[in-house]
C-alpha cells in the first residue's frame, strides 16, 4: 500500500506542477497557486478558478464555478463519514479526490482509514510542493499545452477511480453517469454536468438487505 501511495503522490505532484505552471503562464501571480493549494486543496476547482480568471471572468464567477464543481464533496463526506470519525476536522480538510478514490478502493474499514490519512497527508505535501515548483517554473514555460500538461489531471483521476469502477454494480451507474455528464456538458455551466451524473445511480442495484 505504501508503494501505491508514493506512486499516487508522485503523479499528483506532477499534476500540481501542471497546475502551478498553467496558472502562472496565464498571468496570475506566482504566490497564487500555493495560496490556493493550502486554502482550497481541491485540484479540479483550482484549475477552474484559474481558467475563469484567466479568461477574464469575475472573481465572483470563479468562486461560484469552484463551489459548483466541489459540490461533489458533499456525498464524499457522507461516504467517508465513518472512515474519518476519529479526526473529523483533519479528515474533512484532506478529502482530496485522489485520496477519496484511493481509500474507496480499500474494502476493509481499518485499511480504508489508514489509507485515507496516510494518502491524504502525503497528497497534501506533494500537491503543495508540485504547485510551488510549477509556479516557479511557469514563469519560464509559456505554452503549457505544448507539454500536454492539461491531460495530467484527468489521467490521474481516471487511473485512481478505475479499480472502483470495475466493481460489479458500479460499472453500469458509472458509465451511464459519465454519458449523462458528457451529453449535458455543452449546455450547462461547469460543475452541473458532473452532478447530473448521479442520474446514473438509476442503474444501481437495490441492496439485497432491504
Amino acid at each position: 500500500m505504501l508503494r501505491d501511495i508514493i506512486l499516487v503522490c508522485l503523479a499528483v505532484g506532477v499534476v500540481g506542477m501542471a497546475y502551478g505552471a498553467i496558472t502562472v503562464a496565464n498571468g496570475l501571480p506566482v504566490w497564487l497557486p500555493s495560496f490556493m493549494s493550502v486554502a482550497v486543496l481541491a485540484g479540479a476547482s483550482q484549475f477552474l478558478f484559474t481558467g475563469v480568471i484567466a479568461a477574464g471572468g469575475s472573481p465572483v464567477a470563479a468562486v461560484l464555478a469552484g463551489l459548483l464543481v466541489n459540490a461533489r464533496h458533499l456525498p464524499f463526506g457522507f461516504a467517508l463519514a465513518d472512515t474519518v470519525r476519529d479526526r473529523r476536522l483533519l479528515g474533512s480538510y484532506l478529502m482530496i479526490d485522489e485520496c477519496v478514490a484511493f481509500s474507496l478502493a480499500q474494502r476493509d474499514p481499518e485499511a480504508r482509514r489508514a489509507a485515507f490519512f496516510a494518502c491524504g497527508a502525503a497528497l497534501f505535501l506533494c500537491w503543495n510542493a508540485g504547485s510551488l515548483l510549477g509556479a516557479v517554473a511557469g514563469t519560464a514555460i509559456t505554452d503549457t499545452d505544448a507539454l500536454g500538461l492539461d491531460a495530467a489531471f484527468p489521467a490521474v483521476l481516471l487511473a485512481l477511480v478505475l479499480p472502483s469502477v470495475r466493481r460489479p454494480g458500479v460499472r453500469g451507474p458509472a458509465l451511464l453517469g459519465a454519458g449523462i455528464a458528457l451529453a449535458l456538458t455543452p449546455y450547462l455551466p461547469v460543475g452541473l454536468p458532473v452532478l447530473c451524473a448521479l442520474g446514473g445511480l438509476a442503474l444501481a442495484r437495490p441492496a439485497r438487505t432491504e
Partner: protein
Amino acid sequence: MIPDAWVLVVAGGVLGLGTFAYRAAGPFLHTRFTLSAARQVLMTTAATVLLFALAVTASVADGQVWSDPARPAGVVVAGVLAWFRAPFVVVVLAAAGTAAALRLLVG
C-alpha cells in the same frame, strides 16, 4: 485583466471555506443519524460515479468548450495503461507525453 491581490485572497478564501463545508457536512452530521449498510454502499457508488464523470468530462472539455482531440487521446492511453495496472506516474507521464506528441505532429 488580473484582479488585485486582495480580491484573489478573498475569493480563494471563500472557495476554501465553502469546499471545507461540503467536506465536513458528512462527518459532522453523520452522528445525528446512522446510515444503513445499503445506504453506505449507495454513497460509495455515488462518489465513484461523480469521480468518473469528472475524469471523463475534464478529459474532453474546459467548461462548455470541447478541447482539441490530443487531450482525450492522452487520457485514453492513460486509461489503457491504468487498466493493466501500470504505475500511476507512468500513466500520468504517458497522458501528457501523448497529448504533447500529437500536438507537435499535427499542430
